[in-house]
């Protein structure tokens, strides 16, 4: 009875020591500043160049398909993209497939637009949420105003200045999906391959490896993967934000976890060699 209890207590202690180490690895770098900026990746630069190359005043559709659980990774890149659009004078159209993400979309677009004096309806459109997923994309592909007859604030989308020249997805040159789930694949199959727009993506680090086949095939023009993707975009935009600020903590924590894994494996291989 005593031995299993002792081993469980030891297990719990080891776990709690690791928790403290991880917490320290994240918090301490915020308090002890040291410069750390990486070279933006090729796939992030590709999306940045795409937004940059669009003629000023172009319409860009953003689908912010995430909720608060993925906010830490996706909010910084969403903000950076919106800022880039407003800087270029583009007209972002913002929507989401996730009901629980609408509040974040609202907060994001109002924060980015108010800093540069842009107004809803005139310079950007917040469409909000509608259920349907792939059916909604198919709807929008035929008629954007038919799918969303009013914006989030209740204003009719028909005749809205920010939507001038836009009747469906076929009139939009670039769509960017910021995703915490499988919506990127959905946008590729039901949107991009049917209606001919270019598609960029931002996603949580968890699903980033799954999207590389679409990058190679050209179905995605660029990809922001996780907080590193957000940091890279902020470097390209020359506007540091919370993405870049998190890179010190990210680096130190990764080194810690790698160290723990290597130490555990060295001990394991040593024990195995002895027996």
């Amino acid at each position: 009875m005593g031995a299993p209890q002792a081993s469980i207590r030891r297990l719990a202690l080891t776990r709690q020591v690791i928790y403290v180490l991880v917490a320290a690895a994240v918090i301490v770098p915020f308090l002890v500043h040291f410069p750390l900026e990486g070279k933006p990746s090729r796939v992030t630069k590709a999306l940045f160049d795409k937004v940059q190359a669009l003629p000023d005043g172009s319409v860009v559709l953003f689908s912010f398909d995430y909720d608060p659980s993925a906010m830490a990774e996706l909010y910084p890149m969403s903000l950076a993209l919106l800022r880039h659009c407003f800087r270029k004078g583009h007209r972002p159209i913002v929507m989401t497939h996730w009901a629980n993400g609408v509040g974040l979309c609202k907060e994001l677009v109002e924060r980015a637009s108010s800093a540069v004096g842009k107004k809803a309806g005139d310079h950007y459109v917040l469409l909000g949420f509608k259920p349907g997923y792939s059916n909604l994309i198919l709807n929008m592909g035929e008629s954007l105003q038919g799918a969303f007859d009013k914006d989030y604030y209740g204003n009719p989308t028909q005749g809205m200045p920010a939507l001038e020249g836009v009747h469906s997805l076929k009139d939009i040159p670039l769509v960017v999906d910021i995703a915490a789930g499988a919506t990127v694949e959905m946008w590729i199959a039901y949107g991009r391959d049917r209606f001919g727009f270019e598609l960029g993506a931002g996603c949580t680090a968890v699903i980033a490896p799954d999207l590389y086949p679409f990058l190679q095939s050209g179905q995605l023009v660029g990809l922001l993967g996780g907080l590193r993707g957000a940091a890279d975009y902020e470097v390209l935009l020359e506007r540091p934000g919370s993405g870049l600020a998190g890179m010190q903590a990210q680096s130190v924590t990764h080194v810690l976890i790698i160290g723990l894994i290597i130490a555990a494996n060295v001990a394991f291989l040593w024990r195995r060699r002895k027996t």
Partner: protein
Amino acid sequence: MWFKRTIPLLICFVVGTLAFVHEFVPHPLAGTFRQEMTTWFRIIGGFGLFIGAYSLLHMHVTRIRRRQAGWAYSAFVFLGAALMIAFGLYNGGAGPLAPPPGEDTMFQWLYMNVQVPCGATIFSILAFFMASAAFRTFRARNIEAALLLVAAVIVMFGRVPISEALSTVFPKAADLLMEYPNMAAKRGILLGISLGMISQSLRILFGIERSYLGGGD
């Protein structure tokens, strides 16, 4: 049986076949058909949320009624939902207590200060669990496990800026690993899943796969 099983399966077959065939019909009627159907499903989808809501609330009502372990906490589910619905309904329409322009509603306030921190924090706890689990269980017991471990270390190190400060080899190695062997495996998995999806869709259309009908007949 006719109304409970045969007709629904017939509907599935007919609608599915029309959905498949209309993709290859250039006539404007095909576009109108698609537009109409997708609008219908958008509307039906709105009703679907209430099934989930009812199931969740029913589960908590049962827990309270039967005084199951932790039943008192279920009251907070109803409290949270009632607050959100009350503020949503009250502030949703125009009225004397609607917020002045430029200010946010209590609905948005509750979302930003309750739902956002709770949702963000619950998933961030996984960082600790991952670190602990990696230390306790991630072992190179054989070649395959060693490959997995080495790939993980290359990616974890190569994708943070600190590695670039040491050498540009690390981020390049991570990029090469992502763009070649990782991409190949993911493409293989994607092709396999896609073939499976097509096969499953055909099974659904022909009524061989019926689990979506639910229990009973």
